[in-house]
């Protein structure tokens, strides 16, 4: 049996760990509250944008005059041969299964798309090419180990007797699955402008036909006990205002219970945040039963607004993922603190036993010594 001094040391070290995990839990709780608020504040804008686009669609400005042909490239559906997958995870660990679950879901997506004849034949051909774009260091590290990075060939064609140059980086695909860009920088200070820039690059690739579909994999956050991993189709846009979710992974009851306990002790509501007055009004935005005048051609307006809708979708996914990350970390750190508490109890018991055993041995020695006299 270990001696008393060793046990004391271990107890002290476990206590220190518990201090740290407790502090991390409280920090995550505070960050979660802020992240939740941000996600809330982003909703009116997204809602209003979707409304205006829907009302433009109702006015049938999206379709050509002959009827049927879609006027915006982001609405055009093509056979999915080259797919872009945006994997949104976090920068830091210690968040339970937050990062690994996203990774697993993304891997599953890739595997089904790569497997020959495994996919629905009318919709998607088997063995698609997949470009992975990662957000968050954890997601980057995971896929960097598995897949090679994409390469580009720099083209510089001179024409007009060398007066002008055509400069372009042409993609050279060597493997069916490659990592194109890492967008981890977005997470540091999440701003709409930065997201817009990345979204532009994605939209441009889609419009050029370099990619035929764009999917997002991320942790969706409804409340502390309602988070799920979703695979969402970003492009082409099928239905405005209601994202198309192709795969979902819900929390188990057990996970929900643990999360609820953690939230309770951290003073966070487990209910989904209620709709604010602003949100309710946002729903009415642009839906007034009047014929609007348009300052410019509605079709032009639609063309300008649609890319913004895509940015909003990505921005929304990032905000949700951040909130989800903090919630996961809070829950994980709560479990860690509880485990540390249990361990301390166990070790204290063992230590007391050891001490008692030592005392008993000593007494026996004294008694038997006295008896020998």
């Amino acid at each position, binding site marked *: 049996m270990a001696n008393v001094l060793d046990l004391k040391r271990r107890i002290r070290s476990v206590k220190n760990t518990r201090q740290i995990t407790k502090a991390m839990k409280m920090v995550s709780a505070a960050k979660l509250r802020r992240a939740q608020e941000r996600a809330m504040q982003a909703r009116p804008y997204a809602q209003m944008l979707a409304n*205006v686009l829907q009302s433009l669609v109702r006015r049938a400005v999206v379709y050509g005059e002959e009827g049927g042909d879609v006027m915006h490239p982001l609405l055009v559906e093509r056979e999915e041969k080259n797919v872009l997958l945006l994997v949104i995870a976090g920068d830091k660990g210690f968040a339970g299964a937050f990062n690994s679950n996203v990774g697993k879901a993304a891997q599953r997506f890739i595997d089904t798309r790569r497997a020959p004849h495994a996919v629905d034949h009318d919709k998607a051909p088997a063995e698609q090419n997949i470009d992975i774009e990662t957000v968050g260091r954890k997601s980057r590290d995971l896929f960097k180990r598995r897949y090679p990075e994409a390469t580009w060939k720099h083209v510089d064609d001179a024409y007009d007797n060398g007066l002008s140059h055509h400069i372009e980086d042409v993609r050279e695909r060597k493997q069916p699955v490659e990592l194109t860009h890492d967008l981890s920088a977005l997470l540091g200070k999440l701003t709409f*402008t930065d997201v817009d820039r990345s979204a532009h690059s994605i939209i441009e690739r889609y419009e050029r036909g370099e990619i035929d579909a764009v999917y997002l994999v991320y942790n969706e956050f409804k409340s502390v006990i309602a988070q799920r991993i979703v695979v969402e189709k970003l492009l082409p846009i099928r239905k405005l205002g209601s994202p198309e979710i192709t795969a979902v992974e819900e929390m188990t009851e057990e996970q929900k219970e643990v999360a609820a306990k953690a939230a309770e002790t951290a003073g966070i509501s487990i209910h989904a945040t209620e709709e604010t007055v602003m949100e309710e009004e946002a729903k009415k935005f642009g839906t007034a039963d009047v014929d609007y005048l348009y300052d410019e051609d509605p079709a032009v307006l639609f063309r300008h*607004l649609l890319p913004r809708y895509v940015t909003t979708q990505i921005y929304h996914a990032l905000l949700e993922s951040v909130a989800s990350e903090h919630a996961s970390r809070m829950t994980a750190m709560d479990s860690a603190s509880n485990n540390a508490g249990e361990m301390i109890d166990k070790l204290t018991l063992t230590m007391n036993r050891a001490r008692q055993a030592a005392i008993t041995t000593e007494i026996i020695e004294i008694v038997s010594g006295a008896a020998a006299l």
Partner: protein
Amino acid sequence: MADEQTSTQGLLAVRVVTPDRILVDATADAVELPARSGYMEALYGAAPLLAELGAGEVRLHGGNSGNAKFFVASGFAEILPQRVTLLAETALKTDEIDPGAAKTELEAAQQDWNSAGDDAEKYSYAQGEIRTAEEKISAAADR
């Protein structure tokens, strides 16, 4: 006469909403806003209108708005008889603008413009950025 008019007229409810927050929620007699095709002013009872926003200054007059001014860039506006809502990707109170940062943005945009080569898309994107930065600087100077 002017007073009489405002007392019989209602006030416009004005909102400026960005992806991050609701910047303004106020009432006003009139709102000047930068549509893509030029500045326009909305008064109480205006005909319903949807317009895309360019970069520029939004000025509120009267009501409880305190004649506030804001800088907005890229977004759109919904004008209803009693309500004006601006959705802007970028919206700042004029005193929130950092002129130094705006100048750096302008320089970066000009650099993009110079290096755009024959890529029309990059070119027009850079042009938009330049315009935004310029408007931002002038809005900051105007406060």
